[in-house]
């Protein structure tokens, strides 16, 4: 198999290091440290092949007209990372137990050091993520970036949107105050209005015919383990397809016709 030739990162000429002349060469301690660092990274890279992957992922050609609207996708991803990281740390204090859940949330908000701040990041971050995901979806729609060959990436994005909604729904119960409780009662009953399967879906969500202690632990497990794993995996697939297909030019940029082809036509 021929070795894949990847484009080198475009470094402006002014920043390109000029090699030292042989007679100037002196081995200082900094040179040795640099050599050692390069050697260590090279040792790892030779075994991982990560630099080729990194160039494939990061040093892509982007079309003319790429603008700030193209950052909405990564903004959504960073909102998810914020949710994941603050969520993991909130789990250190949170107790998914019908008797203690509210008390543990109160402890996070009122007593734990920076608890109110980290909980606020998680709470407001969830709204930010939902807003960003819709802006990103609107950008994709209005720029026509869902068209061939990117249809599957749109489908993955819709799955990510649904999973984000499921995260919002399951996370809403966890503070276990009056608002959480009744919002979840109403939400589960909305699920139940689906004909034929609705009643069984409600029983599945609640873990029984009525709202019970196991409902809270079910929602916690779904919120904390099942959906985050699925979202992370689908974001990986989404990014793979973005890298594979590249980004689209904005619709107001027309493809330039090759001047030679233009002359041939006349």
């Amino acid at each position, binding site marked *: 198999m021929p070795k894949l030739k990847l484009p080198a990162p475009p470094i402006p000429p002014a920043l390109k290091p000029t090699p030292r002349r042989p007679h100037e060469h002196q081995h200082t301690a900094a040179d040795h440290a640099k050599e050692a660092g390069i050697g260590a990274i090279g040792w790892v890279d030779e075994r991982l092949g990560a630099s080729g992957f990194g160039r494939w992922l990061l040093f892509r050609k982007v079309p003319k007209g790429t603008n700030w609207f193209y950052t909405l996708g990564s903004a959504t991803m960073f909102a998810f990372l914020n949710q994941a990281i603050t969520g993991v740390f909130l789990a250190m204090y949170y107790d998914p137990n019908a008797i203690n859940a509210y008390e543990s949330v109160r402890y996070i908000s009122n007593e734990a050091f920076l608890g109110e701040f980290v909980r606020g990041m998680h709470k407001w971050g969830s709204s930010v993520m939902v807003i960003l995901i819709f802006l990103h979806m609107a950008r994709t729609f209005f720029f026509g970036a869902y068209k061939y060959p990117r249809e599957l990436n749109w489908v993955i994005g819709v799955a990510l949107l649904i999973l984000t909604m499921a995260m919002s729904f399951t996370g809403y119960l966890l503070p276990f105050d009056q608002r959480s409780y*009744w919002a979840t009662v109403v939400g589960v*009953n909305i699920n139940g209005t689906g004909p034929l399967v609705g009643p069984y879906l409600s029983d599945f969500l609640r873990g*029984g*015919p*009525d709202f019970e202690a*196991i409902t809270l632990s079910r929602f916690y497990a779904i919120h904390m383990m099942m959906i985050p794993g699925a979202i992370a995996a689908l974001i990986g697939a989404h990014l793979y397809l973005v890298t594979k297909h590249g980004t689209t030019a904005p619709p107001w940029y027309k493809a330039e016709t090759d001047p030679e082809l233009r002359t041939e036509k006349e």
Partner: protein
Amino acid sequence: MPPKRKHVTKSKYTVDRQIPGAFEGETITRRRFMTGGAHLGGAVATLAIVLPAAGFAFGPVFEKKDQPWNAVGLPDDFPDDTYVPVVVTLNDNIGQGGKTTVYMRKRNPEIDKEPEDEYNKWVALSTRCMHLGCPVRFVAASGRFICPCHGGVYGFRGEVTGGPPVRPLDRFYTKLERGQVWVGPRYSVNSELERFSPRDPGEPLDGIGQYLYPSRPTIRVGPNQ
């Protein structure tokens, strides 16, 4: 261009075709046998993990939950022209969340036209709004039940008189035992106040509603469960 080779199979047995077979005198090649065996082994290993986990997650959907009877007072505690709120415990493992308010009154033959039996000598109405499950409140001045969420209104017998609810308020079986009034399992009613297995809010029971929203194995009709 290489000459076209016509693949002529003289015999279906691997031995005759001089290919290694899975067993002596077999028709399946050793390669197909190993591939199939690997697929089968993988499928068995996957199912061994997935089936117990799925059963564990879906188990509660098929498990019947016992509905408790609660003693709520003496027979004379409840008038027949207005409602008295009582608190009953439906789940004892979720703290205050497992309690619910029930509106109780004595059966009044002048207004309660549904057939009388031993389980409706007292009328016990659930406070779950039949739109989406918010708690309704009895307003004595108007003799109606009002839901704060989306404006559902119910008349004195729990029948829908306004707003989005799809059926009258659910009821509970009541009985007299050892000198006390007891509130038992919940049941749902259609607009004729006929009894049905308990349904969730938002599920109509008139017309084809009772078939579109079937009863569930977790909770069934009947006072003795």
